[in-house]
């Protein structure tokens, strides 16, 4: 079990470099997103459409998934079903061995991060090479991603230069971005051409045609999905779309919300296997790993609409300051705060739903209209009721509820300032407040005293 968010955030907040990077990066991308979203006259209608498509897929997920399986199979691919991370990892490891390889090249993928695929493959003697630039940086540094879209957002280019100098054996490298990219390209090209198995996630998969879609910016994904003889795609079951035509809505929503671009540079689509062109074996691993359980919660299930754009991270004042690592989960930020605990059955990541001031900025930008603040409040309630809360907090809350339930007790508390004293016993003592703020002082005369005195 990871450290709670408040503990982890207290450490991360002291990382001045990360604070600066996050501030610059999120400010820039917020402005870019706002600009390209403002260009679209029917953005709100588009968000509605996106939410409707995902809800339609989720409402009859079983039907759409079986249809996807039939379509992929008919097109020459093979579909595998994985209940959890262990099953998915075992399937991928077996497929890599059967393909006669002990290496894979990877497209950036949240699903394979979620199941810890790289570590699981390493335990089987299989090396996974990340090929997305930021994922490569994170992997070479033995670090963890801290953003859904920009996994190395917490690093600066001097740190990256030092890392590349050391790992690539190129001691004369400077921190010039073009030079750093060229070094990464030299490193990756050799692997693209040599390794025979590609592993990807999926942004979307269309049930009617069996087409699988990956959206990216660097072209490394295109390399991984076209050059190897075998391609293995690990996809969360909520990624299925009912129809190929639904991509029309999704591909307008995703890049604008994600990188603040009208369209991303590379959109790869493939349907099963095409003889003589691209991978000659295609495996689609459908991953549950807590998604079916999440679907059972009528309020919480909207988290499964998420298309991993990370717009909510970029506008979140909590994320911007605490950074992605504080969340201790594959999915950071506001979406992580509602997704990670649900996927873990509320047993792990239980502090995350409180890692928000409920300011609502995330809901405003979500391209599929996930009402994140409402789900946060809903999950807080479920965790308090199902998992329990610290006794001191529960007792203080119950005592306050009793005070507020009666005018007599409420006015007595006002007079005796018991309200203030009770507040002092709230989660984390009042000390936490008064470290940086003057504590609120109750004036001698309450409003109702004044009201009584004038009538």
């Amino acid at each position: 079990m990871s450290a709670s968010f408040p503990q982890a955030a207290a450490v991360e907040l002291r990382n001045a470099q990360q604070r600066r990077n996050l501030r610059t990066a999120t400010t820039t991308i917020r402005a870019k997103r706002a600009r390209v979203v403002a260009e679209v006259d029917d953005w709100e209608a588009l968000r509605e459409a996106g939410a409707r498509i995902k809800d339609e897929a989720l409402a009859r997920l079983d039907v759409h998934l079986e249809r996807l399986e039939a379509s992929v199979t008919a097109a020459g691919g093979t579909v595998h079903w994985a209940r959890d991370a262990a099953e998915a990892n075992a399937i991928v490891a077996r497929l890599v061995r059967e393909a006669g390889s002990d290496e894979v090249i990877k497209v950036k993928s949240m699903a394979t991060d979620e199941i810890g695929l790289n570590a699981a493959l390493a335990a089987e003697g299989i090396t996974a090479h990340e090929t997305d630039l930021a994922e490569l940086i994170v992997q070479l540094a033995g670090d963890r991603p801290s953003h859904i879209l920009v996994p190395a957002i917490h690093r600066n280019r001097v740190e990256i230069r030092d890392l590349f100098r050391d790992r690539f054996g190129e001691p004369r490298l400077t921190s010039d971005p073009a030079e750093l990219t060229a070094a990464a390209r030299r490193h990756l090209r050799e692997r693209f051409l040599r390794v025979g198995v590609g592993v990807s996630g999926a942004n979307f998969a269309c049930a009617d045609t069996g087409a699988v879609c990956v959206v990216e910016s660097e072209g490394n994904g295109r390399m991984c999905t076209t050059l190897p003889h075998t391609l293995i795609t690990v996809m969360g079951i909520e990624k299925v779309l009912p129809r190929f035509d639904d991509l029309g809505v999704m591909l307008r929503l995703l890049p604008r919300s994600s990188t603040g671009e009208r369209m991303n540079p590379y959109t790869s689509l493939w349907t099963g296997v095409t003889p003589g062109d691209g991978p000659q074996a295609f495996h689609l691993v459908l991953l549950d790993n807590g998604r079916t359980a999440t679907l059972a919660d009528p309020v919480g299930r909207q988290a499964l609409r998420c298309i991993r754009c990370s717009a909510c991270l970029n506008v979140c004042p909590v994320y911007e300051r605490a950074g992605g690592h504080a969340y201790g989960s594959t999915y950071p930020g506001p979406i992580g705060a509602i997704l990670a605990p649900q996927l873990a059955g509320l047993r792990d990541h239980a502090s995350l739903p409180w890692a928000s001031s409920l300011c609502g900025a995330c809901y405003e930008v979500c391209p599929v209209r996930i009402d994140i603040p409402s789900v946060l409040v809903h999950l807080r309630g479920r965790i308090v009721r199902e998992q329990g809360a610290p006794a001191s907090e529960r007792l203080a809350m119950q005592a306050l509820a009793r005070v507020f339930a009666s005018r007599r007790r409420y006015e007595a508390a006002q007079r005796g300032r018991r309200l203030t004293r009770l507040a002092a016993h709230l989660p984390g003592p009042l000390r936490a407040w008064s470290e940086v703020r003057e504590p609120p002082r109750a004036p001698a005369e309450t409003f109702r005293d004044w009201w009584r005195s004038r009538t």
Partner: protein
Amino acid sequence: MNHGIAIMNDRLGLWFNPAMRVALFVTCVNDTFAPQAARATVELLERLGHEVVFPPQQTCCGQMHANTGYQLEAVPLARRFVRVFGDPSFEAIVSPSASCVGMVHDQYPRLAELAGDRDLAERVRELAPRVHDLTTFLVDVLGVEDVGAVFPHRVTYHPTCHGLRGLRLADRPLRLLRAVRDIDLVELPEAETCCGFGGTFAVKNADTSAAMLADKVRCVLDTGADVCAAADSSCLLHIGGGLERQRAGVRAMHLAEILASTR
């Protein structure tokens, strides 16, 4: 706009809006910690010619409980609210807190559903359209933007999250402030970013909250304003607490206090 026209506007406003019987939903925070904001609300509404009543049985709307995960403890407080404010003689229920008004509009229906209380759900449906935050009541219901206030100070305005994104107050508070005579209204940088209060967030995630407050205080100080105004006292206690701890010499004031000021 000169003062004479403003007075004429007020009279026209009164002409079109005959005196209303307004119940004050004061909120526990204003009642206990910011009575000056509540008094200003009363004085302002009375100056505009309306009758203000204060139902003394009111306590707390239950927002802190609901938002911290204690929805079941908040349900009796929601029932209490609809009982206390259900008097049909109240033509409007007005509060100087956008956040607590949002609680009634957005969360009460969910609390009723959680508790399986259909009577509560029905009474919320009936009552909620009459529950307004002060700025919506002034601008939309009364149709007044110039309330005849005079406030000769440099002021910056922080739009609180539940007002901005919850109730969608948009520029209503700013329209009210712009009509104040002698005010020097300056724009707050990064105004729409949360101050870091978030109810129990400020104690449960005190470090992150403090980091957010530090940035908000810096933005307020950058404006050179004497007064940081907002339409929610809980956020003001937070921002004001930060300003005071730094001995910054900037006052946190509720919008109602500015609107109630006269020459």
